[in-house]
């Protein structure tokens, strides 16, 4: 097999991404033509920045979804002739049915860079939004009462959040995301022979992962306590899913085995949520302080509504604009944090294909072979850029009216 020359491998890469192009067309063309009727979402397509941002983000989202189709090789396997191979190199004697070229070259361990970048998108785009969501849950559940009630609880929570903000992130990473710290703490055994260690990351995970359940139970209770039947159903469903998820994720105890996550990954979720939560807490608290003075809140108070109803069903929906914008920007920031973790070789396993770890692996030979580090770096940059542009266009759109 010949090496691919010039622009030939760019063409091959473009063809390789065909499911992404099809999916983007299916999503963007109808969204664009109905943009006047779809509210805030449609506003994205009114500005050039919004379209570029949406394209970049959807490109990576669909890449993550169709990763198995797009990948040319197994991202964790080594291939003959690929050690530090330049983009477009041919594999040495590929077997029947194996893609004959390394589209973006090979890394120092002779793995295919293209497939690793694609596989990395799946890891980054799974962890970042979910971790951001957890941070949001914590920020909302604590920020609403802090802003609404004020007083001692507000002082205490603000102090704790300032404490975390003043903590150098990088130090926190090094202290909390190490294999040693996971093996500490007293062990508890329950449910037969299952053992759970009360190590610091496990305790943090246990603290963080309970918030969604608390949030939704309060949400249903505050609105539907006048309709006990509906409320009981909603709370029962929430509790079943919540407790199942909680036991599975925080306590590694899931009989079905569906929700078990790797300890390193759990560690990352917990730490990223802890680092991100104070910023959300501040935003939600600030928004609550602002919205609480509005007339419709006063009207609800006069009606005799309970505080949690006002917070969750009057204030929160009206704070959604800034929160959605912030969510977009925060996913990007989380992706950067995740990359930094990978860059320092913390958390995920060293052979993991996530972009940060790949950059870390490749940086030692950077001055000689730059492509194994360059492509994941560009991938991360375009994803974050897309999220930033999307967030910006959403902010401008929500400020217009």
């Amino acid at each position, binding site marked *: 097999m010949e090496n691919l020359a010039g622009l030939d491998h760019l063409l091959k890469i473009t063809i390789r991404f065909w499911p992404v192009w099809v999916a983007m067309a299916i999503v963007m063309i109808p969204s664009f033509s109905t943009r006047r009727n779809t509210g805030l979402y449609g506003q994205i397509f009114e500005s050039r920045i919004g379209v570029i941002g949406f394209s970049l983000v959807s490109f990576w989202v669909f890449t993550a979804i169709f990763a198995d189709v797009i990948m040319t090789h197994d991202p964790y396997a080594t291939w003959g002739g690929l050690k530090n191979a330049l983009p477009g190199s041919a594999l040495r004697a590929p077997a029947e049915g194996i893609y004959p070229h390394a589209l973006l070259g090979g890394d120092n361990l002779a793995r295919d860079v293209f497939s690793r970048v694609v596989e990395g998108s799946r890891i980054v785009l799974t962890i970042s939004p979910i971790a951001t969501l957890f941070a949001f849950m914590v920020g909302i559940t604590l920020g609403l009462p802090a802003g609404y009630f004020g007083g001692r609880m507000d002082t205490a929570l603000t102090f704790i959040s300032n404490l975390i903000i003043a903590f150098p*992130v990088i130090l926190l990473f090094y202290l909390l995301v190490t294999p040693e710290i996971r093996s500490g703490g007293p062990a508890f055994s329950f449910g037969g022979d299952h053992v759970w260690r009360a190590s610091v990351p496990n305790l943090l995970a246990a603290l963080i992962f309970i918030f969604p359940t608390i949030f939704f139970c309060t949400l249903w209770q505050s609105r539907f306590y006048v309709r006990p039947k509906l409320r009981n159903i909603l709370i029962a469903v929430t509790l079943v899913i919540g407790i199942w998820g909680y036991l599975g994720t925080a306590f590694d105890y899931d009989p079905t085995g569906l929700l078990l996550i790797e300890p390193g990954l759990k560690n990352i979720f917990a730490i990223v949520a802890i680092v991100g939560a104070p910023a959300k807490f501040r935003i939600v608290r600030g928004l609550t302080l602002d919205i609480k003075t509005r007339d419709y809140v006063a009207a609800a108070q006069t009606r005799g509504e309970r505080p949690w109803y006002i917070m969750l069903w009057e204030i929160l929906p009206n704070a959604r604009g800034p929160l959605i914008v912030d969510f977009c920007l925060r996913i990007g920031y989380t992706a950067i944090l995740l990359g930094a973790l990978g860059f320092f070789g913390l958390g995920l396993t060293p052979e993991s294909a996530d972009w940060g770890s790949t950059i870390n692996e490749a940086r030692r030979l950077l001055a000689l072979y730059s492509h194994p580090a360059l492509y994941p770096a560009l991938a991360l940059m375009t994803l974050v850029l897309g999220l930033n542009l999307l967030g910006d266009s959403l902010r401008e759109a929500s400020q217009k009216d």
Partner: protein
Amino acid sequence: MAHFILRRLGVMLLTTVCLTFIVFFLTNLTPNLEKLAKSEANARMSDAEVTRWLAEHGYDQNVVTRYGQWLGIVPSPKLTDPDGVTYTRCARPERPAEIAPKFCGILQGELGFSSVFKIEVTDAIANRLGKTGYLMLAVMCVMVPLALLIGILSGMREGSLMDRVLSAFAIITTSTPEYVSAIILIAVFASKNSGISPHFVEWGLIEGPTLFKASAATALRDITFSNFTLPVTALTLYGMGYIARMTRASMAEVMTQQYIRTARLKGVPFRAIVLKHALRNAMITPFTIIMLQFPWLLTGVVIVETIFNYKGFGWSLVQAAGNNDIELLMGISIVAVVVVLLTQLISDIGYVYLNPRIRVS
């Protein structure tokens, strides 16, 4: 004002104590201490030996007691092992355990002894902090004027072509964390096989193999243009975009104010309006943002110093954390936390000073 600063200082002290205790607690968890014992004494110790080593070195005491010893308010005991060798955490090579003082904590001006570098933590930090100081100074000298210029130029005529180009540049740089921009910069400017350096060599424009150096190790002794440009640029880019965007927003808001319109209608030249009328009011937000950038730069400094092999403060943080050098890590964290809190305080005071509408009660 004095009352405000005093109260803030009180909160700062409390925050520092809380944060250093958290770091102390986390570095002194049992698995970390076991690792320390194995790295200090013998990697193949049995569990019983590890426990004995920890007891002989006073690590079996309550974590709060030992935090007190680190602070210098609880005396450090002198421990004698079965061989008759006395140990105390205040002992140093030049100051044997017999004559070591009882108290050696932060209140006595001692931060302990680094187990990795085998020198006083205060010396280790002072030396490295100076090196990082040069880096930060260079970054600030480049970043702040450039960011303000970009922000002002794009904010003074919102929606113009210049605004759109500069804003696009700013948002691209905010999306490029240091470890990404460093990789791109090295690939373009400091690689023998890719980027522009091979072409430059071919055309005979540069002497060495690459335009800039991918390592800043030589900058520890002698800072030159070729070894310091890339680390400074990598750090500058990520921080700059954010300041520029904030400056732009602030400037654009000021330019819509009534008094600017009045000045324009009076016939004041545009240049004079921007420089004399708008600038001071538009600088309030960026000032706060720039001060708050310092703590944020720390993560970047650690990343950049690791990539470019510049042995400064961030590099020693990685060394201390990787080898669980408890005392050095504590020293580093107290410096980092104090820097963060001081910049927050300065930014608050500066905000009040710059904005006469805000009065602290």
